[in-house]
């Protein structure tokens, strides 16, 4: 479905991503893990068109994505959230989601009324329906993360890129968020998620890719990757490995 080949992105002299290649198959949940600064968010920015590549190519269903502006990538059916939430602060929760519905993939001529009813469905799915008429300012952090997901879902994506939607949530909230991800996935949406919470990665991911210093370090099922010596050295640490096996 999505294919990255030799993706390279430099900021000045620093190579944030060098020669990263992998594919995402339709229907899977792919985890993207790695230490801070590994290039995970940069990779999402490259896919969604926020950054231009310095090398390599990205194709989505056979169409080249690199070089396209973000709005065209969105309309092809790729939705994303931001690690640091970026809500439309003066709008209500419902209006936030409606913007996604109004402009997303294949929605070019959706009338505002239809967009709002689709927004309501999406808010129901992520559990924000009761707060639809509140402004964003009165939402808690977990709710703001849900709103990010709702807005991206409202664009009717076929591929959803989630950037640390569970960071900063307490264990109960993480469970709720996991449920939400499973529900979204059950709706037929392919998911790529960046996550530091290993419980999430093991819990929902079919496959995991580890990035380290802008490079593709390892790839495999969650169990394989978490036992990989290189991954333990670069990211998880000996204590984590000991705990898992101890």
């Amino acid at each position, binding site marked *: 479905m999505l294919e990255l080949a030799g993706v390279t992105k430099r900021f000045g002299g620093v190579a944030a991503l060098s020669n990263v290649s992998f594919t995402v198959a339709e229907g899977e949940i792919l985890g993207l893990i790695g230490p801070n600064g590994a290039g995970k968010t940069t990779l999402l920015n490259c896919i969604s068109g*926020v950054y231009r590549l310095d090398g390599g190519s990205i194709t989505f269903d056979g169409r080249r994505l690199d070089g396209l502006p973000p709005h065209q*990538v969105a309309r092809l059916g790729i939705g994303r959230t931001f690690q640091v939430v970026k809500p439309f*602060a003066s709008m209500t929760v419902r209006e936030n989601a409606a913007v996604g519905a109004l402009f997303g993939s294949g929605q070019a001529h959706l009338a505002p009324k239809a967009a709002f009813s689709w927004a309501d469905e999406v808010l129901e799915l992520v559990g924000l329906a009761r707060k639809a008429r509140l402004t964003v300012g009165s939402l808690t952090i977990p709710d703001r993360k849900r709103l990010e997901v709702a807005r991206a879902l409202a664009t009717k994506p076929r591929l959803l890129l989630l950037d640390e939607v569970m960071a900063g949530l307490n264990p109960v909230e993480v469970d709720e968020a996991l449920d939400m991800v499973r529900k979204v996935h059950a709706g037929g949406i392919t998911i790529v998620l960046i996550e530091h919470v290993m419980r999430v990665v093991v819990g929902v991911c079919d496959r995991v890719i580890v990035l380290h210093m802008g490079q593709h370090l390892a790839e495999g099922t969650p169990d394989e990757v978490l036992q990989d010596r290189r991954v333990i050295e670069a990211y998880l640490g000996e204590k984590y490995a000991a705990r898992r096996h101890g």
Partner: protein
Amino acid sequence: MSEAAFSTQPSRTGRRIRRAILIAFLLVVVVVLVLPLTLTQQAADANLDPTTLGIDFAINKSIVRTETTIAMFVALAAAWNLIGGLTGYAAFGNVAFFGLGAYTVGFLTDKQHLSFALALPLAPLVAAAFAGLIGVPLLRLRGHYFAIATLGTGVAVGEVIKNLDVFGGATGLFPPILRHADALFFYLMAANAGLAVVVTWLVMRSRFGYGLIAIRENEEAASVLGVNTTAYKVGAFALAAALTGLAGGIFAQWSSFIDQESVFPIQYNVQMILMAIIGGAGTLFGPVAGAIVLEWLILSLAGGGASAVYAQMGLGVLLAVTVIFVPRGVVDFFGGSSKLSLGYFRRSLRETSV
């Protein structure tokens, strides 16, 4: 707190009060709209009868003039609101579009001997085309960089036109005078003001409007949701330019003499922004209310030497007070969600008394 506390549905008495205010407002609008017709008719009658010539005539003319000027600023402030209020790009050079519209009409009527009726429709087109042209590079800038770039553009356009002999150079242009047309100019300006409000209303209800507000709130998020940010920003800029250019075109014929100083005044940039912000940037009627009140204040205070200085000082203080205490404008103060608004006060009274 219950769900009802967040309800925006007005209570029954609230609705009755609102209806009364609306009717009173409509009455005022009718009087304001009809007044110029009767006043200029009296003036025309007075013109025929030399014995009554004098003070009444002058007063009537000046009332119509005041109303026309206010209508012009309503259009300018409402047009600025499209790019500055809805889209959140603080354009400081909209006077360039006003001047371009004015010079389009001036050039076509004076140098090309086209009639005013034929020349006027071209004014908004020229202004919008220019906005489209400069909008593509300028709207890549954000915040004060954009403000300064537009300010510079506004000044530059005036200077360039002043130095082109085709456009009359420093002498200016003289559209042929239309006699007894005071009422016509008022109605043209008022129609343009009305058009600006209707356009804003349509934009705010549309997909286009949601896109603009999304850009204002977070441009990056808007773009990954599918908003073509460049096209939308340039579109809003061109729409604002068209309405501003139309006002300039009407102004050129109304004043029957234009030069760089009269149609590229830098203070218009500041005034239209002040009006929109004080009234409530990003709202439908805020810029209208701001323009009426402020321009009326400016016209009535700036009569003599010393009072003009006080008027300027007063405007400055007013802006500071507005931005600090009611940043979302006067319209928000009366009905809105601001904690300093009367609406908030009323709601909290109701909640605590129950």
